[in-house]
Every structure is written in C-alpha cells, then in structure tokens.
C-alpha cells in the first residue's frame, strides 16, 4: 500500500497535468460553446507555439518573454487562418463537416511541422529560473508549474468576468445561445468567432510551453493527444462552461496521475485508455458533463 507521501506527490502531478489540460480546455470550450465545433487542430496549435519557442529561444537565444509573445502571436495567426480558410466556409453546413475539416487541418499542421523540422523528438529546456524545483515534503514543483497553476485561475477569473460583464462577453453568450438571433441584435458574429479563436489559440500556445517544459522533449505530434484529452476534459466538466473546462481539466489530470501512480504496474500503461473510459462513463450518466445543463445531449 503506497504511503501518503507518494499519494500526495501523485496528486500534485495530477494537478500539474491538470493545469495544462485546463488551459487548453478553456479554449476548446469557448470555441465549441459558440460554434459547436470540435477543433481537433487545437492541440496542434499548441505544438506550433512550442516549436516557435524552440526556434527563437533555444536556437536563436531571444529573450524568453519576447519569444512567448511571438509564439502566442503566431499561434493566433495559425488559428485564425484555419478559421478563415477551413471553418468559416463550412459554417452553414453540418457539424460533421467541420469535424472532418478540423481533423484535416490538424494533420496539415502536424505534417508541416514534420516537413519544416523533422519527425524526431527534440530536446527542450526551460531556463533555470523557470525549471527551478521547490520541494514540499514528497512534492516537487517547478516555478513553471506554479506559474501555470496560478495562470489557469487568473485566466478563468478574467475570462469569466469578461463573459459576464463586458459587451464582448455578452455578445459571446448570445452567439452561443442562438447565433441567428445574435445576428439580429446587430452583433457581428464573425468578429466574435475570431475573438474566441484568438483567445483559444493563445491559451493553447501557453499551455504548450508548460507541457514542453515538463516533459523536456517535443515532437510534431505532441499536441494531438493532449488536445484530445483536453477536449475530453471540457466535455467532462460541461462543454461551453469555462468553469467546467477547468474543473474537468483538473479532474482528468488527477485521475490520470492517480491511476498511473496507484494502479499495479501491469495496468499503468492503460492510463490513456482509462481517460477515455472515464469520459464515456461520465457522458452516460450526465450527457452534458458535470456542470452542464440537463438539456438534450443524447441523440
């Protein structure tokens, strides 16, 4: 029976992972809430952000703060291009077509990165002041971990405030509720969608930095599975709800890490599978996620 200290450290590993999922899930939830679009390419935008940092920071030695800004900007550009080229023309078509399109965009981005860089993993190191470890008993957290965790909540609070209290936020809620009616209110729906995509892309890029710093390697496909899990997290917490996305992100991260840490070693490689299983189970009980409303989620 593993001791409490081990349990605690796994719990915190889960929180670390959960912060990443939460941050990506917020972006997912925002876009899905308005457009009903599962953006498979979301995870790959994370990869774009990370590779930008790799090139600018690691290879060219640009100061980190500048690199992050450029990386976020580039991710936003990629995200908005995808919206303009691959999603906007399909807005009036069914959900299925946008799903296919987003998968195609995902593969496109992955392979562009493969082509420009290489399919191999590359080492990635955060500067020391970020990767410095702080020990609390059995729990070890880097500065980056702490920053990310705090950032998730700051972003959550900021975005929630924006959604509730600003004009843009109200417009977003209106679009999410009934897009045609929103148009009739004089809301420029296209602008709202662009804003949502931009925010989502920026968050994806930031979370990529955290993920890369944690695992110390990056490769062109690194974003896809975390992106998928982040979507699961958003669904778990209740798609369309920002708080739900964060909640789902942490729950998923913690469950995944506890599973990995506490299950006998024969089963630990099943952690990815376990994540999906949990998702399916939750959806069966609460079709709209934990914090979701109880209106039709079943076909």
């Amino acid at each position, binding site marked *: 029976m593993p001791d409490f200290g081990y349990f605690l450290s796994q719990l915190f590993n889960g929180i670390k992972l959960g912060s990443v999922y939460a941050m990506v899930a917020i972006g997912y939830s925002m876009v899905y809430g308005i457009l009903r679009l599962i953006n498979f390419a979301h995870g790959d935008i994370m990869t774009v952000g990370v590779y930008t940092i790799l090139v600018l920071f690691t290879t060219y030695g640009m100061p980190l703060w500048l690199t992050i800004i450029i990386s976020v900007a580039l991710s936003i550009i990629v995200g908005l291009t995808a919206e303009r080229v691959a999603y906007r023309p399909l807005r009036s078509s069914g959900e299925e077509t946008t799903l296919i399109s987003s998968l195609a965009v995902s593969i496109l981005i992955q392979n562009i990165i493969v082509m420009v860089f290489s399919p191999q993993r590359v080492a990635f190191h955060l500067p020391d002041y970020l990767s410095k470890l702080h020990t609390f008993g059995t729990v070890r957290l880097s500065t980056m971990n702490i920053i990310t965790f705090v950032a998730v909540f700051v972003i959550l609070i900021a975005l929630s405030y924006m959604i509730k209290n600003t*004009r843009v936020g*109200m*417009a977003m*809620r*209106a679009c*999410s*509720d*009934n897009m*045609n*009616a*929103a*148009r*009739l*209110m*004089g*809301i*420029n*729906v296209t602008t709202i969608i662009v804003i949502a995509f931009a925010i989502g892309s920026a968050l994806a890029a930031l979370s990529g930095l955290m993920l890369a710093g944690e695992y110390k390697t990056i490769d062109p496909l690194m974003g896809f599975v975390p992106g998928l899990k982040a979507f699961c997290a958003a669904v778990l917490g209740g798609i369309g709800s920002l708080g739900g996305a964060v909640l789902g992100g942490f729950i998923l991260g913690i469950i995944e890490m506890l599973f990995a840490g506490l299950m006998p070693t024969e089963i630990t490689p099943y952690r990815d599978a376990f994540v999906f299983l949990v998702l399916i189970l939750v959806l069966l009980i609460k079709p709209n996620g934990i914090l979701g*409303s109880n209106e039709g989620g079943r076909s």
Partner: protein
Amino acid sequence: MLKIENLCVKYDSIRVVHNVSLDINDGEIVAMIGANGAGKSTILKTISGLLKAESGKITMDSEDITRVDSHVIVQRGIIQVPEGRQIFTKMTIEENLKLGAFLQKDKEKVERNFERVLTLFPILKERLKQTAGTLSGGEQQMLAIGRALMGAPRLLLLDEPSMGLSPLMTQNVFDVLRQLKKDGITMLLVEQNAYDALEISDRTYILETGVVKITGWSRELIEDPGIKKAYLGGEYDA
C-alpha cells in the same frame, strides 16, 4: 423608407422569391400575407441579411442595403422579430432585453426604452430575473417584441408573431402592435393570420408562390369578396 425592387431569392438552388417589389413609407403598417411557402419569411430574412438575394435591390432611405451584413442592417434601424421568437433561452429576460439594445450608445435612452417596454409588457416586468426559456409561447413573443423595441427601430419587421399562439394570446400581441402603431413605429408584418393582419395594417401585399399577387389598401382588400373567399374563409364574417 424601405423600397424593394425586383427581388429574387434562392433557397438551396430553388428560387422562392420571383421579382418581388414593395415599399414601405414612414409610419405605415404594411402587411404581407399568403399561404405557407409563399416566400414571405424569406423576404424578411433577406432584408435582415440572414439570406443573400440572388438579384434585385433593397434600399433604406435611398441607401442600397441589398448586400450588407446583418449587423449593419440593424445599425440602419431595421430590426426583426424573427419567426419562432428566437429568444436567448439560456439568458434572463432582463439580459434578453439588454441584448436588444446591444448597439445603442445612449445609456439614458436605453433606460427610457427599458421602462417603456416594461410598461408595454407588464408580464416581463414581474419576471425580469427569470430564464427566458421558461416562458410560455405568448410571453416569449412579448419578450421578442420587447427586445426588438429596445433597439429603437425605425422599421420593425415581424415574422409571423401569432404563430403557435392561442387566439387569446394572438389578440394580446395585436393589441400591443396597435399600441405601437399609435406610437408611430413603422412596421412590416408577415402573417398567416390574414384577418388580423388586414385589420391592423394600412396596406397589404398578398403573396403566392413567391410573387406579389395582389396589393392595395387593407380596408379595401378586407371587403373584397374574392379575397374573402381565398384568404378569409369565404362567406363567414369574422
């Protein structure tokens, strides 16, 4: 005020509106009646920019608004109460109304309009914090109209306001419209309920399969035996 010339609209590659022309003058209520599928709602949606015209011209105060985006149409003061209400079901009544005033800059004017709307629709006043999705059909219609009024419309488009409502609720809605008429609001009213539409409007266009069949003064049309037979149930006097 509003002038439509030779409008043609396609819906999924089928043309549903053929060369329709109509105009609306300040302070008028103009009605468009006709059977289902006549193209009435399509015309309204095209005016509001939800559908794109295939050909033809729509002008508002001599400004060409045919190809303009929907949010700009609202800026020009053309506000639609859409078919089926289309209220924001997940938001409160108050939020719905506030959204109607999305483009309004003058805060005091918005407050005044808000009070005005609540006076017109006392039911809404009682339920300001209630979620709009819990309202009944008639109440939702009131909310939809109130929401449109919050935008200080110069031209109010109403798409089948009586649809799905009981006769009593329909009368309530038309009472409100009569009140609005007194306040001088210009309206284009699409209705399947021919009698009420003819009664309340100044002029009427009767549409059939996408063309304007008849047009004229409503008080004349309402007496016309041919019209009575075709649209008002024959010899029965209401």
